[in-house]
């Protein structure tokens, strides 16, 4: 007797019933669609400190999901969503309206007033838009047509090196016993070319087949990135796997990238592997390594820095933490953008680039090697519904040939980028309301100190209040 998840969160009723009820005509029997309404509200008072790793300098703006904020100061982000889903026997339509904003008086109850303008945009405020939409129809038992703009990913269960985002898509997917597949056409950019050489289209075509073998799921991945905007043709190919060996949870992926960027040949790679060994409810340690290849020489005819389509490390399996400092936009020093764990923008946004969030990654980036240690579990001895997650990343640049040493000009930049420490505490009051707190710091290593000529640590403090219904 399988039921939907979160039984207290979703209300269901038939479409006909809803209409009749709204007209005061009472309940009625109908074979019409079943509708769910749901929503979330998250309020996140946040303090960023020293995103430039330098106490003496005024931090520039950085970008989080709510918009532009200072890299050194407080902000309160509000992400509010209202979703609904209608479904019949072989079809469904889901839409989620969202307002995601940094709260000020101008973008809440004063969204609309005469001559209002912020950041060059009229009436930039808390208007809801359709953040996500998913339209499905089952053409055959193992063939489901899908379209919309919703969460889709290629390697989220492992390292998140290649793709996870809510870009528009059209595709097919299906499942037959232990085999499932998904093919997608993802028109990320489809701009009207106005004559600017920087404007253009970016289309991605992907295919992934997942085969369950005993307690393992193995997934060959193939994606072709037709990046007109960057004059790049890239084929990604790889393998993702996750499963169990004894009591341990393992996951891995290897991704290769091959093609051309302008007149240059592209050949690059990335990999991830992790193992988690749950000991008890309170202690579940893990070890993971994450690698993205760097470019050794920006002046040669080769592009070697790895760019995913969207590096989604922030939300990936073992190493992900929604709100840790490495997943924020660290544009100075390390060069990782929002969501990404790899320093994909170091070297200049779009320089010999072929992807990344906003199509802004650099093909001459230094790459990274991350060694991660962490643990998570319940703190039932302290409080019944309290949990924690703690992790430490040691980060090295893969290649430093393209980096500039500001501290000791002319010398090679050290390859140790730094250490991050994340601590997350979560308390669930019930299944509809929880709070969590993240304290996360990035202690710059010599590799960043050489580039910034400073050695101050960066911090994130975020308190999240989360409602779901």
């Amino acid at each position, binding site marked *: 007797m399988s039921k939907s998840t979160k039984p207290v969160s979703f209300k269901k009723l038939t479409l006909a019933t809803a209409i009749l009820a709204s007209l005061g005509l009472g309940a009625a029997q109908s074979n019409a669609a079943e509708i769910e309404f749901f929503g*979330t509200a998250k309020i996140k008072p946040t303090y960023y400190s020293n995103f430039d790793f330098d106490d003496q300098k005024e931090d520039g703006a950085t970008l989080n999901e709510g918009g532009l904020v200072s890299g050194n100061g407080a902000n309160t982000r509000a992400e509010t*969503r209202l979703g609904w889903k209608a479904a019949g026997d072989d079809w469904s339509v889901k839409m989620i309206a969202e307002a995601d904003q940094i709260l000020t008086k101008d973008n809440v109850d004063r969204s609309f007033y005469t001559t209002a303008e912020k950041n060059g945009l009229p009436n930039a405020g808390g208007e809801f838009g359709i953040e996500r939409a998913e339209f499905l129809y089952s053409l055959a038992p193992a063939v489901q047509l899908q379209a919309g703009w919703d969460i889709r990913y290629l390697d989220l269960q492992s390292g998140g090196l290649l793709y996870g985002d809510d870009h528009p898509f059209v595709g097919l997917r299906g499942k037959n016993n232990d085999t499932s597949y998904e093919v997608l056409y993802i028109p990320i950019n489809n701009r009207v070319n106005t004559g600017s050489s920087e404007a253009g289209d970016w289309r991605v075509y992907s295919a992934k087949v997942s085969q369950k073998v005993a307690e393992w799921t193995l997934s060959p991945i193939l994606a072709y990135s037709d990046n007109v905007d960057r004059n790049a043709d890239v084929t990604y190919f790889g393998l993702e796997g996750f499963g169990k060996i004894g009591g341990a949870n393992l996951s891995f992926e290897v991704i290769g990238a091959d093609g051309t960027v302008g007149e240059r040949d592209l050949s690059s790679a990335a990999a991830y592997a992790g193992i988690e060994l749950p000991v008890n409810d309170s202690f579940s340690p893990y070890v993971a390594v994450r690698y993205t290849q760097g470019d050794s020489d920006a002046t040669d005819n080769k592009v070697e820095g790895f760019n995913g389509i969207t590096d989604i490390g922030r939300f990936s399996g073992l190493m992900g933490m929604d709100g840790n400092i490495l997943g924020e936009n660290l544009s100075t020093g390390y060069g990782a953008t929002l969501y990404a764990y790899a320093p994909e923008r170091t070297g200049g946004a779009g320089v010999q680039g072929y992807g990344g969030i906003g199509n802004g990654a650099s093909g001459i980036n230094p790459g990274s090697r991350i060694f991660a240690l962490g643990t998570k579990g319940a703190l039932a001895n302290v409080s019944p519904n309290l949990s924690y997650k703690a992790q430490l990343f040691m980060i090295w640049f893969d290649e430093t040939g393209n980096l500039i040493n500001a501290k000791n000009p002319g010398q090679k930049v050290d390859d140790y980028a730094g250490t991050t420490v994340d601590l997350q505490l979560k308390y669930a009051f019930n*299944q509809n309301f929880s709070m969590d707190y993240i304290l996360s710091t990035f202690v710059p290593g010599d590799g960043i100190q050489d580039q910034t000529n400073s050695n101050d640590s960066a911090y994130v403090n975020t308190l999240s209040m989360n409602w779901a219904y």
Partner: protein
Amino acid sequence: MIDIARINFRLPVLLIWLLSVAWLPTAYAEWIQTEKSLAAWDDSKTIDFIMTGDDGRLALESLELLRRLVSLGYQITLGRHADSPVSALELRLTVTNRTATLVLNRTRDGMTIGAEQRQLAETTATNYTNKTVRLAGRPSVGNSVPDRRIDLNRRPLRIVSLNQPNPDILRVALLGAKGLSVYDIDSTQVLKPVAEFRPSNANLEALYLDAGDIDADGNTEIVAVWGENNISGFDGIDTKLHAWVLALDDSGLKPVSDDLQAYLRINNNTAYLQRRGVYEAFAGGVYQLESHDGLFSIAKSPAFLGLSNIYQDTPIDHASAFSLDENDRLLYRTGVGQRQTAVTSVPYSDALGEITFPVVYVKLEQQEYPLGFDESDRVRERAIPLARRVQIDGDIAYTQVRGRNTSLFRSKAEGTDRIVAVDIRSGRMTEPFAAVGNFILDFTVRQDPNNARVAILLLNDKPDGSGRSSLRIQQDSTNQ
């Protein structure tokens, strides 16, 4: 059960007339829309009931309507007279030529706010050899012992009756998140605590409770099952089962088994056990729990082949069972001991209504992202509701019908829940106890010292047990 005190002085006259014609065979269906309207009516619950027509079925149709009106809390005035107090509603039933018409009017403005019509057909009780469970005719009104209602301070989810310490006292066990409690209920309708057992685990939710003499020592054992849910975990909620066999004696309520970490159930004084899977709520077979010198062990082979869920499947004997399917229909099955494909069954034509609590949470093999990537947006588990109780007592199986529900745009619940009885020999389904305007979370039926059936209902304002909780003790209205 009709509360006589709530019907005015004209009732005796009506009853005499009704009983004089009550032998007429009639099929009774529910007035679904009208009942919903009456349940949702939040103004004064006073009603004029008017009967017209020349069909002999008018009597029983009227009687059934009266019974339902009382169960919904209405004070009824029969007919309309100049000296009648002004009622808020008027309900007019007309039965002519096998056609019954029901019209509901609002008194203050005379507006018709509901109307239904249906044909009355002759009833033919279905032969049980067809394996079809059919609703039999509704019972006639028997002795009119009023229901007893007891408000509870706690919010238990499960109830079971135990042996009565003396004929004037009912003894029940209630299972809640904090523990298992045994109470005596006397004529003062006050719960007297008898014994209590509290597990040491945190974050528990009550799942299942049963009682029976499973070791044939003449004393009743209790099996209690809780689920431990960590709702703050980063990997989703994954219910851990905790279950004990307990015995009640003069020194209190004590576990006589280890924590078996499994589902437990007692049926016909036989205890059964089933375990969870990593990604399944129920895994493997259902095994008998055997007793040897006061110690319990798990049988090596499954207890009944072909049936796979300890709560959905209820053995009647070695060759037949009741089963509940995914659409909340009651099935009668034979061929136990044979492969599933050999089972013959025909579903009860009407679903019994969806039971949504209590639930077991099962971790998903791959988490889902219906809302977003954020940790709090992911779906990492499924909630699997446990099947409704089916209690077999001699030749009768009891279960509950969920007719009460809440909808999105109505803040109040509407409809009624009820207990139904299935005669195992004939397949006839009857409703020996009055429907109630609350959610029945659980129930237990027993014989009182006079051999009359008594149902003890565990009620709540909300289907998940989070609202006001109460017990309702109902007498059999059919005198069976």
